[in-house]
């Protein structure tokens, strides 16, 4: 039974094409119904993210591809020839490899990004809830999620941050471990500082204090983070109580100096202080990096962390590709063997009937004989049947292409007179 993917992604289509095809979660059930209503489709799922829209189907034959492309064309509201420039079509083993790669984040714009696994899961679950998955697609879905998990666990591909704000979060975790209950001081209202504070705030911070020369802006930002605005002139006491300081002001001079940090650390009693300077010109005195218990990272340091993590991800991606290749091969073999099972069982039953019938006739003709002699003849007949069955079964289990498998299956059924 063919597996087919028809879709567009960030590599084949620009955003204006993708947005026309994208499906809102509220419209997913209707979309699945439409797709399933096409002739020859047994099971269907639709993956719609900001980077891709794909119809994943199991069908009785490959001739469903054309109607699926037509359906996509209709959805995009464009000329078919125009859409065809962006559409890719994958079949059988390529579908498995594609799905395993997509769910593992290997086909993502940012390689290894973790969100895609959840999006693939959600797409399949929506299809399952709608009753749109047949047994084959269900198995493919379960295996896809297993492979995605294995890739993440074995390679750690998504463990390291590849953007500056996330690099800051990663370093904060390396210093403090759990970020719950920590306090952050945000100095200035620069975009990068705001973004970093936003990422940090997702990890259960106790409080964010915001200080800005324009106090109104500080109040506005503090409200956004459910934090507290403080006067820029009065920030020094907050250095002692906050664990992370993010500086992102437009000031042309240092706003945090060594003396401030020395005084803050003296009252912090063995608690470390993480300072993130995202400003250019720098706002935090570089000499602070030399103070025990203070960890200072500027924008270049964080960029370097992100770059080196990106390189690491590419190395991990190679390992992940090897895992995917092995998994595709293993799963494909399982599917082929599973597909051949009914024919094999029927074939074995047919030959066993012939064997038992002919053995009975033979034994009747031969007359009385010892138990050993009878056993020897029975064994001979069984071995003959097994030898005859060996190659047909092997061929059925190893036929790669569905078309080849189908031809083989029909031939064997015809030769052996199976129903």
């Amino acid at each position, binding site marked *: 039974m063919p597996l087919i993917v028809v879709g567009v992604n960030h590599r084949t289509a620009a955003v204006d094409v993708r947005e026309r095809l994208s499906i809102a979660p509220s419209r997913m059930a209707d979309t699945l119904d439409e797709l399933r209503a096409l002739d020859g489709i047994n099971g269907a799922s639709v993956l719609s993210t900001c980077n891709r829209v794909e119809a994943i189907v199991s069908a009785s034959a490959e001739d469903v591809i054309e109607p699926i492309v037509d359906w996509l064309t209709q959805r995009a509201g464009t000329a078919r020839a125009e859409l065809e420039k962006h559409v890719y079509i994958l079949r059988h083993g390529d579908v498995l490899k594609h799905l395993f790669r997509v769910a593992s984040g290997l086909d993502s714009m940012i390689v290894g990004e973790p969100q895609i696994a959840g999006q693939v899961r959600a797409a399949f679950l929506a299809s399952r809830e709608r009753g749109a998955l047949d047994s084959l697609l269900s198995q493919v879905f379960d295996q896809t999620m297993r492979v995605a998990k294995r890739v993440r*666990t*074995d390679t*750690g591909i998504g*463990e390291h941050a590849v953007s500056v704000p996330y690099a800051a979060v990663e*370093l904060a*975790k*390396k*210093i*403090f*471990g759990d970020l719950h209950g920590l306090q952050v001081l945000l100095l200035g209202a620069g975009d990068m500082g705001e973004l970093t504070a936003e990422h940090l705030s997702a990890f259960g911070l106790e409080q964010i204090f915001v200080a800005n020369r324009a106090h109104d802006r500080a109040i506005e930002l503090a409200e956004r983070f459910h934090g507290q605005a403080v006067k820029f002139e009065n920030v020094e006491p907050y250095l002692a109580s906050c664990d992370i300081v993010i500086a992102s002001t437009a000031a042309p001079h240092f706003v945090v100096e060594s003396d401030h940090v020395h005084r803050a650390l003296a009252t912090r*009693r*063995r608690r*470390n202080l993480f300072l993130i300077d995202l400003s250019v010109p720098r706002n935090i005195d570089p000499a602070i*990096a030399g103070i*025990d*218990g203070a*960890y200072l*990272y500027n924008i270049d*340091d964080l960029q*370097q*962390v992100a770059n*080196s993590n990106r390189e690491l991800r590419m190395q991990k991606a190679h390992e992940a590709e090897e895992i995917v290749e092995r998994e595709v091969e293993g799963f494909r073999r399982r599917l082929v063997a599973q597909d051949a099972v009914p024919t094999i069982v029927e074939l074995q039953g047919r030959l066993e009937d012939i064997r038992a019938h002919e053995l009975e006739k033979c034994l009747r003709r031969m007359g009385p004989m010892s138990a050993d002699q009878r056993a020897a003849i029975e064994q001979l007949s069984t071995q003959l049947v097994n030898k005859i069955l060996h190659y047909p079964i092997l061929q059925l289990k190893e036929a790669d292409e569905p078309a080849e498998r189908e031809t083989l299956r029909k031939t064997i059924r015809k030769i052996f007179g199976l129903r």
Partner: protein
Amino acid sequence: MSPNLTLYAALALYAAGTIVALATLFTREKRPQHVALGVMIAGFVAHTVWIGTICVRTHHPPLTNLPEAAGFTAWLVFAIELALFIRYRVHAASFFVYPLVLMLLTLSAVVHDPFIKTPAGISRLFITHVFLTTIGVAGLLIGLAFGVLAWAQDRALKTKNRGALWDWIPSLNVCKTVSYRALAIGFSIYTLGILAGILWSYRTTAGLMDLRVKQVGAVVAWILFAIVLQAYISDTYRTRRTAVIGACAFVAIMVAILGIHHA
């Protein structure tokens, strides 16, 4: 089952686990570390059986001579490491803990000391002394291991050079906290153990202590660990001086353990 059989089984498994862990620690691959841990845990099970067999056969805890005390210390060190692994998922401590456990158990296997059978030798005070000292030493050794990790993590963060161990070492806070707690608890118990030893020595030889290797080693280690602990309390553990004193404390404690043989 022969106690020697389980001892050698534990030794072989610890050796295999240590080799795998150390050989793959810098590769950043998780699977070999998990395999190494699995093998070490199998060794720990055999080790536990060995200790249990000794208890059953001798009717007292395995603390009466050097092989037993070294074996029991190794068992405790690994048990604490395992508990910390479950809590913090720290693989990096293996660089210190696994070889240490292997070394202590090898000591148990190669040194042959007679059991102490005199009533004084197996008195409650003596057992208390060895038991507390052993637990204290295990705590101090784990404290040292995590102290090294805290130092390594601090260096990596300060120099911005993450190095190959970056992924294996937990956060600086965890390293510091575990190290400080293990040192503080280990030091307290070790102190009680030494006091019990002094009392036992007084009762059996009518002297508070004499200048035998194990006693000198134990007292020197106590002083050095006190300094290391003070460095943690005052947050000056990052200095080279503390590293050197920590290393000396480790040597002193090993000398004290080996000194049991010459008691």
